[in-house]
């Protein structure tokens, strides 16, 4: 068993032979953060007193949801056979929305701890990240976590892991991040099996940015992995993609609090601060070099994050629009993948069309806007990007259903994904049914072990952005896991369905759907709205239409009575107070033509899930 290292290796001067860079690949609640916590404690970089759960997760949302959104790197000392080593643990985001960030984190490592819950086995997301790790030639260390749980089945899942990555089930380490069992052995094993970094110390400096976060005090903090050469404070550095030049005001390592150093050498992992205020100046995947001795070739693998899912975000109170703009501007500083532009909706007023990497990203952004900036928001149903070609040959990119052209459409291309679903074999039937219902085409089906199956499907992204994951979870009692990757564009038989209230189109409810599903969407929305919109003093027809063709209709019967029968002595004050209350209620109404629609109706109509079976309106 290894003791804590008595001395630490000095950053900037560490021999790459004694550096180990690794990451942890794990499914959302398989205990990655808890394991990381134990490592921090065991190596002594965080003392027991200042330890808190999920130490590395910085945002409240991360800690609450138990997921990591932004990665971070920590340098930890560890001694083995009398030699002190520097271990750099690079925390990776655990969600499909952030695959690109994951791939950059992996590229900064030589080894990966494959962490699997000993009671649950491997999940689809882990599989996807494992695949990425193997593509990057990382040394994989299989580890079963939570072996202290009564439901743990380490034998079974060791077998499963051995089948996946090869090797002997006995080589699979067993740990408990909660109790700390086996964590020291894991640190030893990392040193023994993960290759040390290799680079040319005399070559021009090349460092890969694997993360970039915004800190309100220090500006953008850029996390890098040195490949070749050396970076030092006060040097002029250059971002190779943008050619932008900055001064490295501070260079350091995290252990886990930031510690300024004299620089970073080959194989080291640390941070740079340049005083820049916008994370877009410091893009994940980009290569950093120096102005004095610039590298000629950037590191491979850089790409711009592309938004996959779009949603209109509107303040519930129209006067919050400037605040929303300001909040987005601030959020953008720390979230390079967030894109937005102003948009106007007849029904919802002024807002922004926002692009996200995926659904979780959307959810996190709206939650942060509401929580950190105190805004009340409505988000329209998420949509994807369509490439529409008209008969005239004109090509139009549609990110908002209301932009879908009205003329003769020749073809519509929609984004596809390759989805991997892992689940116990008993659920194969329901999963297939769900995927087929979502226009999925099966690629293959494989047994991972005796009772676990991997299904792969090609699906239109649009079919999974709404409630696919919720449906999958509920149909499989939560056992199925999902991962997906982009899979290009495919032609789809798609139409735009509009919803009209008293003949006026409600842009927020327009949707682009497959022709076969247009009717169902129309019936669903008109039905929902009939329940949600209060009766008006005139009849309100609600229609769903494709172009000029009505495909579904409902109507809200006119309200015939809205009067208090009595108005005598005591009723007078009561009635006046009631009027004042109604004045307040009125503020939460939006006018569509002459129809008053409560905000709640928009929110409820746009939200996923089953419609509540409330009181039927007569």
């Amino acid at each position, binding site marked *: 068993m290894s003791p804590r290292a008595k001395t630490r290796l000095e950053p900037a001067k560490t021999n790459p032979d004694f550096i180990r860079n690794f990451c942890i690949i794990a499914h959302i609640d398989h205990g990655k953060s808890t394991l990381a916590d134990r490592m921090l404690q065991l190596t002594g970089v965080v003392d027991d007193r200042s330890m808190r759960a999920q130490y590395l997760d910085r945002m409240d949302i991360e800690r609450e949801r138990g997921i990591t959104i932004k990665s971070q790197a920590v340098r930890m000392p560890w001694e083995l056979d009398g030699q002190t080593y520097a271990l750099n643990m690079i925390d990776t985001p655990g969600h499909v929305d952030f695959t690109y960030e994951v791939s950059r984190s992996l590229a900064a490592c030589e080894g990966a701890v494959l962490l699997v819950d000993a009671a649950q086995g491997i999940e689809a997301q882990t599989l996807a990240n494992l695949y990425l790790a193997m593509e990057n030639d990382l040394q994989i260390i299989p580890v079963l976590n939570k072996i202290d749980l009564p439901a743990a089945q380490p034998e079974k899942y060791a077998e499963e892991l051995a089948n996946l990555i090869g090797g002997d089930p006995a080589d699979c380490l067993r740990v408990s991040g909660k109790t700390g069992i086996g964590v020291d052995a894991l640190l030893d094993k990392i040193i023994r099996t993960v290759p040390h970094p290799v680079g040319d110390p005399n070559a021009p400096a090349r460092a890969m940015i694997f993360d970039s976060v915004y800190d309100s005090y220090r500006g953008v903090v850029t996390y890098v992995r040195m490949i070749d050469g050396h970076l030092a404070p006060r040097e002029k550095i250059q971002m190779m993609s943008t050619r932008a030049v900055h001064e490295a005001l501070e260079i350091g390592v995290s252990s886990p609090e930031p510690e300024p150093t004299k620089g970073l050498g080959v194989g080291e992992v640390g941070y740079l601060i340049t005083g820049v205020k916008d994370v877009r100046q410091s893009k994940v995947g980009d290569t950093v070099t120096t102005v004095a001795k610039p590298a000629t070739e950037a590191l491979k693998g850089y790409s711009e994050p592309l938004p996959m899912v779009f949603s209109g975000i509107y303040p519930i109170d129209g006067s919050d629009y400037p605040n929303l703009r300001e909040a987005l501007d601030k959020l953008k500083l720390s979230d390079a993948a967030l894109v937005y532009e102003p948009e106007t909706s007849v029904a919802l007023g002024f807002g922004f069309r926002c692009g996200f990497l995926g659904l979780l990203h959307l959810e996190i952004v709206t939650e942060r806007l509401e929580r950190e900036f105190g805004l009340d928001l409505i988000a329209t149903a998420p949509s994807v990007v369509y490439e529409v070609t008209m008969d005239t040959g004109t090509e139009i990119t549609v990110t908002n259903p209301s932009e879908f052209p009205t003329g003769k459409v020749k073809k519509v291309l929609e984004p596809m994904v390759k989805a991997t679903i892992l689940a116990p074999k008993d659920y194969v039937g329901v999963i297939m049914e769900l995927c087929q219902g979502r226009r999925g085409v099966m690629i293959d089906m494989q047994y991972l072990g005796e009772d676990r199956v991997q299904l792969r499907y090609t699906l239109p992204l649009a079919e999974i952005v709404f409630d696919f994951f919720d449906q999958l979870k509920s149909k499989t009692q939560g056992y199925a896991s999902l991962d997906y990757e982009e899979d290009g564009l495919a032609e789809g038989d798609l139409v735009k369905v509009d919803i009209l209230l008293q003949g006026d189109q409600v842009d927020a409810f327009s949707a682009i759907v497959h022709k076969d599903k247009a009717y169902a969407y129309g019936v669903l929305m008109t039905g929902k709205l009939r329940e949600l919109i209060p009766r008006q*003093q*005139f009849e309100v027809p609600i229609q769903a239409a494709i172009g000029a063709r009505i495909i579904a209709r409902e109507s809200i*019967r006119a*309200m*015939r*009575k*809205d*009067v*208090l*029968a*009595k*108005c*005598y*002595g*005591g009723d*007078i*004050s009561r*009635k*006046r107070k009631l*009027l004042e209350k*109604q*004045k307040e209620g*009125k503020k939460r109404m939006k006018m569509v033509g002459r129809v008053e629609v409560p905000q709640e109706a928009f929110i409820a109509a746009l939200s996923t899930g089953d419609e509540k079976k409330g009181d039927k309106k*007569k």
Partner: protein
Amino acid sequence: MSTFHGYVHVPFCKVRCGYCDFNTYTATELQGYPQTAFISNLQVEIELAKQSVGDRELQTIFFGGGTPTLLPANELAEALELLQRNFGIADGAEITTEANPDTVDESYLKTLKSAGFNRLSFGMQSAVPEVLATLERTHNPAGVAENVAIAKRLEFQTSVDLIYGAPGETMEQWQESVHAALAMQTDHISAYALIVEPATKLARQIASGEKPQPDEDLQADKYEWLDYTLAEAGFEWYELSNWSRELGTASRHNMAYWQGMDWWGFGPGAHSHVAGRRWSNVKHPTTYAKHLSEGQIPSIDGELLSVIEQQEERAMLELRLKAGLQLDVVKSLNESHAKAVSELVADGLIDGRQALQGRAVLTLQGRLLADFVLRKLLGL
């Protein structure tokens, strides 16, 4: 100039009806307050009111409740006498009491008549036993016609109150009640849609599913049928829920409320409106008596209305009247009044010709949507 009016609230009932949330108490709920103390308490309040209001003659007086006729007839006569002595009652004043058909008879009514009462408002509610049972009214429906006949013979002006839309009441049952009321040939009919007030027994019964929710559409049908039928029988509406045979038999006392006149409400829980100030008395008779014994006007909830509030109230009340609301009132409250008025005319909720004359007068459909019309006029 505001005229002055008196209301006397008699907060006693034999039983509490399931729909009622008025300030009234059964014998057990009085917690030891003796009904016999009522007149002497009233006397103190009348004297305090006199000190506060000064010399103002009463133009109308109305006894309501509760059940004013639970008091012996001579006590009601005495109350009237107290008002006469302190304020004076104008010649030809309208003096009304609500009457429960089960609590009065010929000699009772004769006593009232000779004391100066000249108008009786009978709480008929319905002529259908099932509906009365739903409302938990205990009176015998046949007693109403009998008492109305006696009252007419004694030359009282007469009115009956009806309630429509009780849970389960059918259109046919409603029609039966209206026909029964018409057969009595009263001068005046009031008809109120049942309002399910929160925290009443009826509200609980509806919440638990024991009784059905009143059907608003059916209530609207009933109102439309009623208005048509009463018009055929020679009645004309003068307020949303009130119809009269001729202009002279409209309730002058109630009109005073709706025209923003001054009135003092005497008795526990009674509301007053004097010189732009509204207040109400404390509710329980025991507390009421205690305040009075200390020489205080037993008021709570006083509020002095701002000019805007006064205008809003005026709009709220006058819109409900046949004469309608002067649109000038709306102009000062709502910038986009012209658009509102034109839309209301277009939707057939207010009369177009009257609007051109500067008044908002509700159409039949508009009466049923009066609160909507009001909000629209006020730009709310």
